Each structure stands twice: as C-alpha cells, then as structure tokens.
C-alpha cells in the first residue's frame, strides 16, 4: 500500500511538472470567467428578479406562456407553467440568479474536463514509451500490474481534482458576478413525479456525479487504446470522435434491439432522472449500470493483459 502511494506521488509529480497540465486549468478558468461575463453583460438579470408582487408577476408570466402554448403545437411551456404555479401555491419566492445556479449550469462544462481527462489518459502510458522511460520504469521491484493501476488511478485523481476546481472556481466567479443566496438555497424543478423542491447543493452534486460517469468511461477507453497501440494521438482521436458521435450512432441504430447494449446508449444516466426518458424502451437504471460496469471491466482487462504480457522491445 505504501509503495502504491509512492507510485501515485510519482505519477502526479510527472503530470504536474509539465506546463500542458497547468494550461488545462488555465483554459477552464478562462472559459468560466468568459461565461460569467457574457451572462452578466447580455442577460439582464435585474429584469428577471421579482419584487414584492412576485405572485402577480408569475401569474402574468403564466398567462403569456399559455398564449404561446396555444399557438405552438409541439414545443410547449408546460413545465415552466407548472413550476410557476408551484411557487404561487406553496408561497415560495423564486430566488434571483446566483453563484449556485451558475455552478449548476457549469456542470455542462464537464464535457471539457472529459476532453482533458482523455488527453491525460491517452498519454500516461504512451508517453513513457515515447520518452523511452518505460524501460527504466519496469526494471524496479514492482509488478507491472501495480504500475498500470497506479497510472489509471492517477487519471481518475486528475479528473476529480479538475472537477473540484470547476466547482470551486464556478462558485467564486459566480459569487463575484451574481452574489450568493445563502449556503444551501433550494431549487424548484421538474422531477420524475411532477414539480418538486430540491436542495440546489444536492442537485449540483447529482449533475456533476452523473457527468463523471461519461467522463470515466471515455477516459478508460482512451487509456485502453493508449496501452494497446502505444500512441496517444490515436487514443485521443478515437476517444474524442466517439464521444461526439456516440449519440448519433445510437440514433442510426436505435431501431435494432441490440442497440441498447452499445456503450453510448448507457453513458448518459440523466435519462433516468428528472424529466428525462430512456433512450430506448425496456432500459432501466439497473440495466445501464450493468452495461457500464461490463464495458469498464472489459477496457481495464484489455489494458492489463497487453501491458503485463508485452515485451518491451526496441523502437
């Protein structure tokens, strides 16, 4: 155990000794700042806040929405209306836009973290081959299995660190631009069984957590490709391509029953929460989790098998 921690320390040292890693944090911070600036300048937040007559304001808003609803056939505002009614009935005043909501919206940025994690996962094995340091790494009294898993755990550590960074920086930048409504305000939203009031903190936690699923699966995939082909470019390319086209692929083959066994039909667990609906009939949360676990184990087994059995030959 002690030397596993030493191995993790080594991997983190190698990771953070390079500017490329730090530039990922800088890019993320810049995107957050730019996002906050755009919301601050272009969305007139003052107009959206409600005064003492907020109940009347909401009622009027609902009337307007109803009119639109009658004109438009497919795209309704049913859930917005229901949420407004909930506010009026339960005497809950809508809170103005603040750092918490900004943070919640930024859960979507975990896509960028996925991208960065893929880059790190794709390089962590193949770079050792490229630098030639793999030879010095594997002639120590440590099994290859342990070295491989220390690298995989390092990738996960990196993504968790980055997610924590996203959360904290969002909250700080959000608080500077929009202020903050206490430590744990609640949020009224559409749930599985109609309108519900939830803790915004819990909601942020759920959203970030669900996005982690996709992130971990793609990172594990990139890790496998990188171990298999010893090429980070190939691993990055393939993983990013699949990440962006995965949903379209599902769209093409959705009519077939076997499509539900494809990884990408299952990575978005949001389909089982809130107002979401499953990609295909007959899919449940339990089913998706099983499929994900099978893929996860398979990716790691392939990595492990190639890494421990392979001869380290000359270039």
């Amino acid at each position, binding site marked *: 155990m*002690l*030397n596993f921690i*030493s*191995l993790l*320390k*080594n991997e983190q*040292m*190698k990771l953070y*000794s*390079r500017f490329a890693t730090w530039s990922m944090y800088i890019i993320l911070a810049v995107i957050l700042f730019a996002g906050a600036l755009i919301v601050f300048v272009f969305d007139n937040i003052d107009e959206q806040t409600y005064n003492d007559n907020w109940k009347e304001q909401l009622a009027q808003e609902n009337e307007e929405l109803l009119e639109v609803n009658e004109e438009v056939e497919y795209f309704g505002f049913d859930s917005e209306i229901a949420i407004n009614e909930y506010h009026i009935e339960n005497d809950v005043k809508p809170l103005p836009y603040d750092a918490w909501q900004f943070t919640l919206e930024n859960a979507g940025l975990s896509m960028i973290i996925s991208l960065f994690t893929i880059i790190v996962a794709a390089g962590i094995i193949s770079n050792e081959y490229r*630098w*030639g*340091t793999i*030879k*010095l*790494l*594997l*002639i*120590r*009294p*440590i*099994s290859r299995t342990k070295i491989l898993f220390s690298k995989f755990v390092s990738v996960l550590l990196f993504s968790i660190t980055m997610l924590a960074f996203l959360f904290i920086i969002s909250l700080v930048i959000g608080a500077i631009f929009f202020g903050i409504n206490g430590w744990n305000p609640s949020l009224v939203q559409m749930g599985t069984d109609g309108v519900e009031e939830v803790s915004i903190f819990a909601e942020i936690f759920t959203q970030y957590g669900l996005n982690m699923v996709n992130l971990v699966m793609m990172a594990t995939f990139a890790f496998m490709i990188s171990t298999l082909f010893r090429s980070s470019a190939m691993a990055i390319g393939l993983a990013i391509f699949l990440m962006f086209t995965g949903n379209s692929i599902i769209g093409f083959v959705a009519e077939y029953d076997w499509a539900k066994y494809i990884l990408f039909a299952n990575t978005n667990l949001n389909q089982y929460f809130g107002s979401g609906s499953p990609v295909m009939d007959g899919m449940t949360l339990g089913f998706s989790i099983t499929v994900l676990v099978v893929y996860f184990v398979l990716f790691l087994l392939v990595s492990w098998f190639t890494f421990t*059995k392979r*001869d*380290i*030959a*000359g270039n």
Partner: protein
Amino acid sequence: MTASMELQDVHKSIGNKQIIKGLNFSIKRGEVFGFLGPNGAGKTTTIRMMVGLMKITSGDIKINGLSIKHNFKEAIQHVGAIVENPEMYPFMSGWNNLKHYARMIPGITDERIKEVIRLVGLEKAIHEKVGKYSLGMRQRMGIAQALLHKPSILILDEPTNGLDPAGIREIRTYIRNLAEQEQVSVIVSSHLLSEIELMCDRIGIIKNGELITVEEVQDTNTENDHVTVKLDVDDNEKVKSILQDQLELEAKIVQDRVVANLPKRIVPQLVRKLVEEDIAIYEVAVERSRLEDKFFELIGENTIA
C-alpha cells in the same frame, strides 16, 4: 560461491524466428563481463531478458540464484541497469528524476540520493531540468539511477554509445572502481571491441543469437607473446631476406608490406638490425591483441555500426 548471474539455455523466439539460440554462461562476483557482437546479434534482446523487459521463451536467468522469470521482484532488486540510452524525464530536474526512481524501491533515503549524486559528480546541475543536460551528463544520470539501491549487478547496454573519448575513459574508470572496490558485477555490451576491451575481465562474443566464445582479457601482451609485425620499408626484398637469413624468422610480402610473426621481445632487436643495414623505415606496425584478430575472424565485416 554462486554466480552473480547465470544464463541457463536461454532461448527467445519472436513469431517463428529464433533470435536467441540457447545461451549458457555465468558472471562471477566482482567481474566486469563484456558482451560483444555486431548490431543485430542479440545483445540487447539478451539484456532485456536479463532485466525482465522481455519474456524468456525457454530456459531461465538466475540473479544471485533467483529466477527472473519466477521471482521477478526479488531478483530485480539486485540489479541496476541502463538499457540503451539513459532516457530521463526531460521536463523534471535531475533531483526529481532520481527521487522518482528512489520512491519505487523501499529504503532509499534522500541522503543516499545525495551520495550517488556526489559519486557521479552532478552536484551543480542536479536542480536543473534534465532536458538541458549534455549527453555526458545524462549518461551520469543513468549511472546514478542504476546505483541508487546499491545493486550487486550492474548492467550497461552500450554505455559508450555517442560519448567522446574522454567520456568513454571516465565511464571505464567508474566501472573498474565499482568492480574492484565494491565487488559489483558489471555486464557491459558493445559492438566495438576497442571501447570495452580495456575495462573487461572477460569478453563473450555473440553472433546470430549464439555465444561463439568467451575469452579472458590479458592485461598486456607479455614479452614472450607472439605478435604480427608489418614493416613499411624502402626495400621489401632486402628486409625479407634479412628476416629470414639473419634472424631466422618466417616473412612474406603482403600488400607492399613485409609481414612477420615473432615474439614481442625480438621487435627492438629487429629495428636495430634494420637500422644497421641502412634501411629506410617508414613504419613498424605491431598488430594488436590476439582477441581482436579473433573478433575480426569471427565477426568479419559486420563490425561497422
């Protein structure tokens, strides 16, 4: 006394091709063993099998009696190695590079790291990035990482590759010191006899995956050893007859040179004689050791890298 390293009928096949065809030899404690052969003879493959980077197809390699196949962790603990070039992480300082390898073996203190840095003379540059180091400095870093855990066997694959003569000389001194003072067994591979001849106690010659011969390296040619002398003189025929008639030696003319085989102690006598006979001498070339002859004989043209 058990051997430091013992190769037992080691075979390696890749696909259908047999690369190593049954190597059997052992290395004694405190000995410097040269592993010589042309490029592609199987030196690097053998070294990679010794340190567990490549799997052994059949046979086994024992390190201090421990099988590298079955007791990898215990066996490799006794080995320090540089395989081909001493590659380091260029974006980290020398210190962090050594710290990195030190963390992988239990019981290496910062004190020990400093000691090794002093030993290879890198104190001044140790906090600079390795990317800025010269090849010679990286070669020293390579030796430093190999010595961190006080191994009883040191394996150096082509340690003189790309070094200038001064660097080669320096490495030679290190290696001799380690073997003589610390009783470390050293295995050095090379494709050039001239570069390792002076540091080795024994040299094994490998060609096409087979060990052709293992030769003891004698310190210097003794007075009674026979050497081949090539003479560049103005009158070949006259010199030939002097050699044959007056000194009673076999002589022949090859490529406009008079060539003779004689005991080394005769050489001064021969030169004096020729001078007395008023012969103009342009060159007296004494062919080098028997080993080099043997090497050329065995390896042939292949020695050019």
